[in-house]
């Protein structure tokens, strides 16, 4: 085998953001290899993520094709996934696909602050680069995204939610 089990698992595309691999998205937590047996640990982005089963099936399929006979896929819930875990390469691929990468999370102590104004992070349009953008919806087609519009090029685009 040329590729290690980690290389194979890391190259599996995410079912909902297929321009990213599971490694780019930061949900691949561990790949433990012992002979032809592999245990892969992944973590959900959101509690209700409907793609976990698909990811598991994809990992099983690709690792078996790569020659691993015994493949186990496990879930890890802690620590909870953060959008900060999307890799620099993942951010570049998102932007190239017209999806704005997430802003960094802010670290806090004490009560979770309430946000009464629409979020206004510095979001640049992934198509034209303009900073003149606004949130049109706090949610979008998948759990991890919100919807924006650029006032310069007038195109709508999605932003990965900061979490």
């Amino acid at each position, binding site marked *: 085998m040329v590729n290690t089990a980690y290389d194979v698992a890391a190259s599996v*595309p995410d079912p909902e953001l297929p321009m990213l691999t599971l490694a780019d998205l930061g949900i691949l937590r561990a790949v433990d290899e012992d002979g032809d047996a592999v245990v892969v640990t992944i973590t959900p982005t959101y509690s209700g993520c409907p*793609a976990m089963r698909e990811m598991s099936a994809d990992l099983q399929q690709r690792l078996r094709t790569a020659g691993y006979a015994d493949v186990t896929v496990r879930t890890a819930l802690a620590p909870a996934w953060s959008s900060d875990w999307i890799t620099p390469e993942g951010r570049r691929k998102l932007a190239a696909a017209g999806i704005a990468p997430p802003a960094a999370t802010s670290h806090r102590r004490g009560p979770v602050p*309430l946000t009464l104004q629409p979020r206004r992070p510095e979001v640049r349009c992934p198509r034209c680069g303009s900073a003149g953008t606004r949130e049109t919806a706090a949610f979008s087609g998948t759990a991890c995204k919100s919807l924006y519009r650029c006032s310069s090029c007038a195109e709508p685009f999605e932003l990965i939610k900061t979490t």
Partner: protein
Amino acid sequence: MSTDDNPYESLADEHGEDHRWAFGTGFVDPLEGIDTSIPAGVDADALAAQCLALGDDALIYSHRLQQWVTRMPELEEETALANIALDLLGQARMLLARAGTIVGRSEDELAFFRAEHEFRNVRFVERLDRDFAELVGRLLIFATWRLALFEQLAGSADPVLAAIAAKGGKELTYHRDYAAQWVVRLGDGTDESKRRMQAGLEVIWPLVDELFAEVDRAEADVVLDTVFATAGLKRPDRAALAPVDRRTGRDGVHTEAMGYVLAELQSVARAHPEATW
């Protein structure tokens, strides 16, 4: 077309048709591969009861939110509502699965094959909201309360419950902000939107006291009062709905609305009890 042109093409590779997630059969266990042993010093029965109650809250409320999908005022709010309901359904699945590891029942058995008096959700989540104002009002209060509870449970002695709470807290923060912004927009909007927002809060309020039996109310009140003040709304002054023979939702005593929501939620599974999907 190369995968450079359409990244979704890469998903069509190397697949049998049998495991496409939209058409597959059977869900995986949401706690697959997680160590579900009970740590020393943790009362397993109390932990199961706690997970069941919190799972039931999310399951019933998620279903009530789902009933509003296709009825929201704008397409953007449809996606918001569906996403919020999905997050809560995910929390419900993990919590019921956690309870199930202790009581020896699957998440599906707990969701679909218990009778009304066996559900432990608060009465607050049972009613179908009459209008959009009532919906965002209930969501604001629910998310504020549950976030306070989850912040506390993130320190639970059970690492599985602690992990579910830590993850869910991030989702609830986002739900709370969404609801709060709508409550302000409606309360600070037209005379009609203000009237309906206030009326929605008045309807919900008698069931709020029951929520704070298990978590300190002060922090949640600061949040709610901030939203009400910004929105120009009055904090309702309504008597709490009394317990029945000292029992409430957590004891399996529910409101009339509960039978209707359960009938819809359970009908397919009960008509086809051996089916997988």
